[in-house]
């Protein structure tokens, strides 16, 4: 037997699940609470705070005394060079539950941006939160679709003989080889100029599913084809198990690990792909925030060095991928679990 990891065998698995679900919960909370955290809408533009850096809340003031949380307001020093200074003379207290915001300042001219602002002076936290629903929703819907189609196509191909197998797999090759951008361009031309958010949402989900399934299909087919030749499958068949039963009972469970890792690969990939699609006109229109579009912005110019807080959506995507990884991935069968 594999030496059991320290502690009981069940605990790490459950801990992983709990960790994953906690992350999921946090992301959901971010998405739901988003508009109320700082009270800024994702589209609100603060023209005097373009590329404002994140400002941390303080509880110890200049004299070293403990006070209620406050921030030092930002003062624009040089617009062209995007330089801000903290006004240490006038600490602005943070208020809870005022004007429909969880936390805000009293001064409308001194808003608080915990994660800084983007190129149009929009609250990065509000946008990050606002983008959760759209970006994660699209990516999860797309990944689910891709995995369903992929698992179905892959298992059919793996179980059936050559003609079906060939047909399915060559169709998969075709989908992979066809540049998706062209499909989207043509699709966009056939659609009305102004699209509603839900139209965009479902179109992108469909496109992503259509583009992503062959990857899953190839892996599932390989696993199914390999497993069905194994002793236990042969035995099951010998005692008269139907193909469907064989597939559902024995072969598909074997692909679970692969499908889980595909999900963790597809989710971040799809969040980013959504930004590429918006480049050819199929994206959530302004001012709807999406993580992919925000990251594309971060790739512009030298934001990477001068406004690194614009990369915050990348961390959110990591969190999402990690959440998926932990909550749907099977428990690791490590040979040796070293002390952590």
């Amino acid at each position: 037997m594999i030496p059991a990891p320290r502690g009981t065998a069940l605990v790490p698995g459950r801990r992983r699940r709990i960790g994953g679900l906690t992350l999921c919960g946090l992301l959901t909370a971010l998405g739901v609470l988003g508009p109320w955290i700082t009270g800024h809408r994702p589209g609100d533009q603060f023209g005097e705070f373009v590329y404002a850096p994140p400002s941390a809340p303080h509880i110890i003031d200049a004299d070293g005394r403990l006070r209620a949380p406050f921030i030092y307001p930002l003062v624009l020093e040089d617009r062209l060079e995007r330089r801000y200074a903290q006004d240490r003379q006038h600490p602005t207290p943070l208020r809870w539950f005022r004007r429909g915001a969880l936390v805000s300042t009293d001064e409308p001219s001194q808003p608080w941006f915990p994660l800084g602002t983007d190129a149009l002076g929009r609250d990065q936290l509000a946008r990050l939160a606002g983008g959760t629903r759209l970006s994660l929703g699209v990516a999860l819907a797309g990944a689910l679709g891709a995995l369903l189609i992929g698992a179905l196509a892959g298992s059919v191909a793996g179980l059936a003989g050559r003609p079906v197998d060939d047909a399915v797999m060559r169709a998969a090759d075709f989908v992979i080889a066809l540049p998706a951008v062209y499909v989207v361009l043509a699709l966009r031309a056939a659609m009305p100029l102004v699209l509603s958010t839900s139209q965009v949402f479902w179109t992108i989900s469909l496109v992503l599913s259509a583009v992503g399934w062959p990857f899953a299909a190839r892996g599932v087919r390989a696993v199914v084809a390999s497993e069905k030749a194994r002793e236990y499958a042969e035995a099951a068949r010998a005692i008269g198990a139907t193909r469907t039963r064989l597939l559902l009972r024995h072969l598909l469970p074997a692909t679970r690990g692969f499908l889980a890792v595909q999900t963790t690969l597809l989710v971040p990939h799809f969040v980013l792909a959504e930004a590429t699609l918006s480049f050819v006109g199929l994206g959530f229109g302004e001012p709807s925030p999406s993580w992919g579009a925000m990251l594309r912005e971060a790739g512009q110019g030298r934001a990477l060095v001068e406004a690194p807080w614009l990369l915050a959506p990348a961390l959110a995507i990591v969190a999402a991928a990690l959440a998926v990884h932990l909550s749907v991935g099977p428990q690791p069968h490590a040979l040796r679990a070293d002390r952590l």
Partner: protein
Amino acid sequence: MRRGLLRYFVRRTAFAALLVLVVSSAAMLLADLAPGDAFSGFDLDPAVAAAERHRLGFDRPFVAQYGSWLGRAMRFDLGESVKYRRPVVELVAERSSKTALLGATALILATVVGIPAGIFTGSRRTLLTRATSAASLVILSVPSLVTSFGLLLLASRTGWLPVGGFSGGADGSFWLTTGRYLVLPAIALALPIAATLERLQSQALNDALADPSVRAAVARGCSERRIVWRHAFRLSLTTVLAIYGVIVGTVLSGSFAVEIVTSWPGLGALMFEALVARDLFLVAGCAAVGAMLLAGGILLSDIALAVADPRLEELA
């Protein structure tokens, strides 16, 4: 077995040819359906545009244009680019070698880093393996546009490497110069592939460790190294190889952003130009090369799959 192999090869080559044809045709159709054409735009007088469209036969229905293109394509003439007024074959050939160089380097790099990393993270659970897995997730969560630009920025600040571009053969030491210019785009292209391979390999190895045959080996008291490399690795190859072929095939589309950002004069950049210019024949030509690469990659991976896992009836 040998005759079977030959038959298999012929069959797959026929499929590959069909794939190339279908993909390039479909790309052409889609580019035709996309809004605008090679002559519309704000820079050309509509009268001049109309006359050019007529002269080059782009005012005919798509079916007629496609028919004459197909006729020529059978003789390996992929038509003439509207933007460049040059044969597509010539343009594509000019760029393909650069993309092949970049793609091959990136693939080797990604494989050499990604697969061992995956074996490492799949077989153990330490702080280091968790950090490696986390690093993979981070790489996968940053667009390659940003990664490439970050690398360029690093090069620009440190002066260690040239900031993009390519000037292989400018002086005597061809490979040295080429190598210097190749480093950045190759790393930028390899990073997400390596991360993908790491994740796949890690999971596959992890699954393999749960396999009865591996457990049996553990029970026999085989050494850890032997278990991982002899038994589990072999088992894990099934899924990794299945996906590997697709990865080879998608290197071209992945190199798109990297080539543009790092000014690498490859096919990805040309493909982008063709798309922006709605240059139908060039679009079809680039798609054809992409399909060829994919067909080749998949064929290789299927053969490797069959060799690694004899239970598959692939070559029978």
